[in-house]
Every structure is written in structure tokens, then in C-alpha cells.
């Protein structure tokens, strides 16, 4: 089926309606005119024939009383003239036999009227119409019944011309009205269907995934309501889809994170089991040895020391692992508050001075007052770890330098040692769990490899950063730099 646009359909309908209305009106009016004209013509001619009859009778009575036929023959012509003059129409008078006895037009027109005349001769009024001429015949009454027929010739030209002019008028007016109506209707429909097309395009855009914004100007009718509804739906769909996408994105992130976590956990467990094996192997070894040589006092003493040491290491490892996993799980358990970093560092340095002295390392600090917002325990752990490392990986007679300063709203803590240092290529990896630069070295000094990974986790939790660099200076070494966002609160500097 051919697809016709609504604009064309409606315009056609409008045209058809207008044309039909004008056509029907024209037909009815013309019919009415015809009926009215015919009635008037009949009335007028009936009146004229009555007067003619009166005239004939009067003439008959006034004249010598002859018989009807003779009278008519004698007076016919005169009467025809008189009747014609009075009526203004051409008149013919016929006798009873249908022969003309008087004719106002002098010359006889060869009109084909015989059949109509027969009707009139039978006593009835009859008229015939052919073209624009009407011939009207009425019976004439004499002293005793019908004496003849009087005929009037009537031109319908005026009437027919009028009819034709009205018809023409209807045609031209009808055409003009139809044309104007079609034009006006089409223009209006154009606007109207334009609104519909706009809606269609709107829906098309939505299908494509384009979510347009509502137009400023909205119609005040049902189409306007429709338009507003479609915009509303578009907005709803868009926000829905946006929401779904956001959700999906979140889910993807979560999945990725979970996958990474799974991966890390697998690695972690792998590392743990490896690291746990080593001390356990040692402990089992000593256990076996003790079983075999229980009475060797040197072995017992050595076993005791080593087993304790390995157990201690295991314990520390378990603690650290627990703390690591606890950090990932139970973040909200940390209590945050303003922490005076310089005070904290001072306190930690005090605690470690003894240990440092045992190794012959001097602890120096230059602390400015600075505060961060965080968990005191956690910060304590962080600093303690790094300080501990600085002592552990130092040389005998070395130095540990701690500084604390506030820079650009951030608190910068630097812990430098004069140890062997970390090769540049290893610096990135030292924060990985269980990674040690030198595994043997770590075992000797009791490092589990978990420390820095933990420190980094904890630093991240505090919103800070940890970086490592080579300590410059004649003695070399490593410097760890921790930066945290500063907390500016009024506090007494007493």
C-alpha cells in the first residue's frame, strides 16, 4: 500500500468536503430556483389566461349573440390583439377544432404544438417547453362549454440566463472557495503536521540514543502534551541508562578489584607459605636433632636459641599478616584525630635510642611542629617500621637522621640512614609484600619482608605517600620520605 502522508490525506479530505458542500448547495439552490421560477411562470400565465377568458366572454356578451364558433371566427383576431396587448405576450386563439382564429404575431409560426393543443382542447391547461420557449395553452369557455383555446408564447430566456448565471456563480465561487479553503487548510495542516513530524523526529532521536532537551516553546494543545510527555520519557530513559551504565561501571571496577585482590591474595598465600616453611623447617630440623642428640648441651643451647628465634619470627610474621589483612578489612576501626607528628616522632626516637645504641648507631632528629589528621596508632606503626628498618639496615657506627617539617600544607617526614643503600632498580619493588633486596641479609637481621608493604598500606590509609631515595652525603645510605596532608588546627605551641 502506498504511503500517503497525513498532510496530503487531510488536505485531500478538506478539498473533497468543501467541493462536496459547495456542489450540494449549488444543486439545492438551483433546484429551488427552478421550482420557484416554474411556479411563478405558471401563476402568471394562469392569470393571463383567466383575464383572456373574461375578455372573450365579455366580447361575446357585448356583441350580437351569434353562436360561439361564428363569434370566435369573427372576433378572434381582434381578441388576440387585445389579449396580446394587455398581457404583453404573443397570443394565438384556436377554435374548438384546433384551427387558429386569431394571431397577434400576424404571421403564423410553424410551431409543433399539436400534441399540447390536443390536451388543451380536451379542457385542460397544458404547456410545453422546448429550449427557451414555453407555449402555454388554456381552454376558453363560451356560453355553453369550451369554445376554443388561448395560447401564450413565453420566453424562458431570462429565466434560463439567470439560472445559468447562478450556476456559473456557484462554479466560480465554488472553485474560489475550494481553492482558498484548500490553501488555508493546507497551510494550517502544514503547521499542524510539522508539529507531528517534529514529534516523530524526536522519537527517532530517542531510538538512536540521542536524548534531546525539551524545547522552549511548547504548543498549548494535545500535541504539546504529547511532546512534553515524550521529552519526559526521554529524560527518564536517559537517566535510567546513565544509571545502569554507572552501575555497570562500578560493578566492572569492583570485579576488577576483586580479581586483583584475589590475585594478590593468591600471591600472598604463596609467599606466606614459602616464608612460613623456612622457619618451620628450621624448627623441625632442631626438633629432629634434639630427638637424636638430646644430651648434647651445645645442641640444646643452640636449638633453644634458634627455635626461639624462629618461633619469634613466625610470631612476628603471623602478627604482621594478621595486621595486613586486618588493615584491608577493618578500615573503619581506625580512630582518627589530630596527631602532632613531631611529638610522636620524638617519642618513637626515644624508645628506639636504646636499640640504636646497642648497634652503635646514633639517632638524630630535627623536628618542627607539624600536625596531621590520622590514627595515632597507625602513624606510630608507620614511623616505627621505617625507623626500625633504618637501624636494621645501617652499618655499625652509622647514623639515623629524622626530620619533620611542614611544606605547602603537607607534613614531610624524612628518615635517612647511612646503610648500604638500595640499588636504584630495586627501589620500586621494595614495597611489595615479602620482597627483600637480599633475602639472606633479611633473614640474618630478622626481616620478614612484610614491613615496607605494610608501611605503604598504612601510609595509603592515612592519605599520605611514601618515597625512597638515596641519601646524599658522604656516607650514602637510604632516605625514606613520608608526606601526609597537613592538619591546620589551632593548638598551643607550648
Amino acid at each position: 500500500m502506498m504511503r500517503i502522508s497525513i498532510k496530503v490525506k487531510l488536505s485531500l479530505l478538506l478539498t473533497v468536503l468543501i467541493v462536496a458542500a459547495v456542489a450540494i448547495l449549488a444543486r439545492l439552490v438551483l433546484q429551488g430556483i427552478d421550482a420557484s421560477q416554474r411556479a411563478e411562470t405558471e401563476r402568471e400565465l394562469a392569470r393571463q389566461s383567466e383575464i383572456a377568458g373574461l375578455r372573450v366572454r365579455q366580447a361575446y356578451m357585448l356583441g350580437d349573440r351569434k353562436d360561439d364558433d361564428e363569434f370566435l371566427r369573427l372576433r378572434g383576431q381582434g381578441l388576440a390583439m387585445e389579449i396580446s396587448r394587455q398581457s404583453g405576450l404573443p397570443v394565438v386563439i384556436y377554435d374548438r377544432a384546433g384551427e387558429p382564429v386569431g394571431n397577434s404575431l400576424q404571421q403564423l409560426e410553424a410551431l409543433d404544438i399539436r400534441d399540447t393543443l390536443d390536451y388543451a382542447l380536451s379542457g385542460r391547461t397544458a404547456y410545453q417547453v422546448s429550449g427557451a420557449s414555453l407555449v402555454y395553452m388554456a381552454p376558453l369557455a363560451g356560453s355553453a362549454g369550451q369554445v376554443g383555446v388561448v395560447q401564450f408564447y413565453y420566453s424562458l430566456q431570462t429565466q434560463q440566463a439567470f439560472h445559468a448565471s447562478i450556476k456559473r456563480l456557484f462554479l466560480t465561487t465554488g472553485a474560489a472557495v475550494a481553492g482558498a479553503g484548500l490553501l488555508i487548510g493546507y497551510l494550517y495542516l502544514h503547521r499542524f503536521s510539522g508539529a507531528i513530524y517534529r514529534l516523530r523526529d524526536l522519537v527517532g532521536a530517542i531510538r538512536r540514543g540521542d536524548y534531546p532537551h525539551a524545547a522552549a516553546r511548547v504548543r498549548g494543545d494535545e500535541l504539546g502534551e504529547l511532546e512534553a510527555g515524550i521529552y519526559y520519557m526521554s529524560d527518564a530513559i536517559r537517566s535510567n541508562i546513565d544509571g545502569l551504565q554507572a552501575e555497570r561501571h562500578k560493578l566492572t571496577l569492583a570485579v576488577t578489584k576483586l580479581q586483583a585482590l584475589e590475585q594478590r591474595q593468591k600471591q600472598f598465600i604463596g609467599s606466606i607459605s614459602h616464608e612460613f616453611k623456612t622457619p618451620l623447617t628450621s624448627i623441625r630440623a632442631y626438633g629432629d636433632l634434639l630427638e637424636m642428640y638430646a644430651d648434647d648441651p651445645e645442641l640444646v643451647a643452640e636449638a633453644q636459641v634458634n627455635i626461639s628465634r624462629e618461633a619469634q619470627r613466625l610470631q612476628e610474621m603471623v602478627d604482621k599478616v594478621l595486621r595486613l589483612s586486618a588493615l584491608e578489612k577493618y578500615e573503619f576501626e581506625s580512630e582518627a584525630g589530630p596527631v602532632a607528628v613531631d611529638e610522636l616522632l620524638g617519642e618513637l626516637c626515644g624508645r628506639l635510642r636504646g636499640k640504636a645504641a646497642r648497634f652503635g648507631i646514633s639517632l638524630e632528629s630535627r623536628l618542627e611542629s607539624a600536625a596531621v589528621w590520622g590514627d595515632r596508632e597507625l602513624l606510630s606503626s608507620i614511623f616505627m617500621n621505617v625507623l626500625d628498618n633504618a637501624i636494621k639496615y645501617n652499618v655499625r657506627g652509622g647514623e639515623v637522621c629524622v626530620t619533620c617539617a611542614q611544606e605547602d600544607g603537607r607534613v614531610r617526614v624524612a628518615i635517612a640512614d647511612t646503610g648500604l643503600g638500595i640499588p636504584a632498580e630495586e627501589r620500586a619493588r621494595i614495597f611489595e609484600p615479602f620482597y627483600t633486596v637480599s633475602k639472606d641479609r633479611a633473614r640474618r637481621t630478622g626481616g620478614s619482608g612484610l614491613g615496607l608493604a605494610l608501611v605503604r598500606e598504612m601510609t595509603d590509609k592515612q592519605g599520605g605517600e611514601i618515597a625512597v631515595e638515596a641519601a646524599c652525603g658522604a656516607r650514602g645510605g637510604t632516605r625514606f620520605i613520608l608526606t601526609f596532608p597537613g592538619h591546620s588546627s589551632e593548638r598551643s605551641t607550648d
Partner: protein
Amino acid sequence: MKNQRNHQPTKRTALALMAACLLAAGCGQSNANEGREVIEKPDKEITVLENGAQAQDSAAQVQTIDELEALRGFDWLNEEEIIVSQPNEEAEPITVEGEARYPNHLYAYNLTTDELEPLQESDEEQNFALLSPDRKHLFYKVMEEASGFPHMLDLESGESIRLMEDQLFAYEGDWADNTHVVFGTVTGQIVSADVEGNVEVLAEAGGVVSDVHRIDDRLYYQNGGVLYMLELADDGTAGEARELMEGVDWVVPSPDGQQLAIVRQSGEAERTLMLTDLEGNEKTSLATSTQIFGTSWAPDGTRLVYNAVSESGGDKGVFIADAVTGQTTQIAVDMEYAADKIRWSPSGARLLTAQSVETDEGYTFKTYVITLQ
């Protein structure tokens, strides 16, 4: 798609209904074909009408018309005799308008025997005769040019009295009862005269007074086309004249004195014959034509006869109007040169009208006696 299917039948029925309505409207027009027969032929169309329009008022059908040459009929003495005037060639000629001619004298003419009987011998011009209701006295004028002196003739004795030395217009004067006539003089007086010749001035109307009639104590008269009415007090003094109507041509009181027939100018070239009450309030309009004249009431007051001439080549002739139904019937054609009022015979079965005829020698008259069925 299902909705579309449901709408289709509704649309179709709507269209069908509309078409039916239109057809019905169109067909309704052509129901006027009753009472006729239409015969279609290749070159023409014949319509035959049932002659239902023959219902004529039987009482207004003419039986015979008699034509009387050289006579001017005025009124009916009885069913067989009429009062006429005719130039008396046996009398001395008189000079009228610079021309010499025989004077008109009044006669009684017998319609059956054709006998003429002079009413009053004189040398004067006698004309414009009006019989009293009891037909015992005759009011006429002795003419001098266009106006005349009022005279009273006792038909029994044959004696005539000149009522006044004042002159009247030719058509002026009407019988108030069997013994009195009223008329307006050229000097604006309304005068009553009795059969004995006693004359009394009833009122001084002033101006040009004409068409005076009296009903009981009311006097009707025209002054410049305006119809007035004044009432006479018991002591005979004239009351205030009241204007009843403008543009009046003729006022004709009914025989029973209950209503008036008035011919009034209703347009540029239009006259209307109407019936009014005694105050001049219109009750019925009977006829309209270019000219209406010669109006008179039938003795029984049920009909009127009048001359109507229509300018548009229409009706021209004598008409009878039914005072009750208002129906008018033409009973004679032409006769537009009526000289005087058309008069009913005492029985109401015959009409008398005199027509002026132009001949080579001047004017003469023909009188028609129309006998109704």
C-alpha cells in the same frame, strides 16, 4: 492494526448515512409534482395541469352585459329603470368651454323598453345625478363649466329646487338619509340640505373641502387629500375636526354605516382599497393597483365593486371584492374610462357603469349594464 480494522465499518456507515441524507434533501425538492402530468418527448416536455383553479365566486360571474350608446347612466331608479343624462338635441345649444353643444338633460331610461322619459324640462345643463336611498328624490347639479349648483328634484312632483347659490364640485354630495344630502362647497363650508330645500351650514371647514359624508352625527370630509372627521353635538355645533388618514383618494361609507371603504395612496403609483372602522383604523386591505376608482357598496353591504387599472399591463377592469373574505374577482375587462361610480341595482344583481368614449366630435358616453348570475 486491530484498531484500524475496527474503525473501517464505522467510517463506512457514516459515509453511507451522509449520502442518504443528501439524496433525501435533493429528492425532497422534487415532490412538487402533484396535480400535474409531465410527458417527456424527444424535442420538448409537455406539462398538463389539473384545472383546479376554476373555483370562481359564482355570485361574481357575469351573465350578460348590455351596452347602451350615447347614454351616461348615474343610478338605478328600480331594477328596470336607470337615471341617465344625454345631450338633448331638441334643446337650445349652450356654450361650454368656448364650444357650443347641446345641454345634457336627465332622463329615466327603461332597460327593457328602451324608452327615455325626461325628468325635468329646462335649458340648463343637468348632470351628476344621485338618487336618495328611497329613490324618491334626486340630487343633481346644474353645471356651469366644471362646477355646478346643487338642485333637489322631487321625482313624484317633478319639481326642482335650487338649494344654494354656491357652487359645488361636480362629484360632490352624498345622501345622509332619505331626506338630507350633505356636501362641501367651493368656499369650504359643509352644508346639509333637506328635500324641502332647507339648507343648513353644519361646519366651516375652510380650504378645499370635498367627498363629504355623514353617518349619524359624524361628518367625514377630505381637505387636500387628508381625511377628517368631526362630530356634531346635540345642539348642532360642530366639534373639533380630527385627522384620520393622509393620502386619501375616496372615502365610501358602508350602507349600514358601520365601516368605511377608503382608497388610499399607498405608494408612488399605487392605490390601495381598504376597509376601516369609523375611526379610520384599517381592518382589511382588499386590493392594490395603480388606480382604483368608482368604488361603491352593494346594497346588502357584503360586497364592493370598483375599477382598477394596473400600470404594469396587468389587471384592468371591473372587480368585485367580498367584504368578508377579502377575495377579489375580475368581472369585466377594460372599462377604465369610467365617468362616475359604478352603481349597484337595488337587488344587487346588476351593475351600472358609464364610460366616456372619445370620438371625432368630442366625448360621448357608453353605459354598460352588467347582470350577474
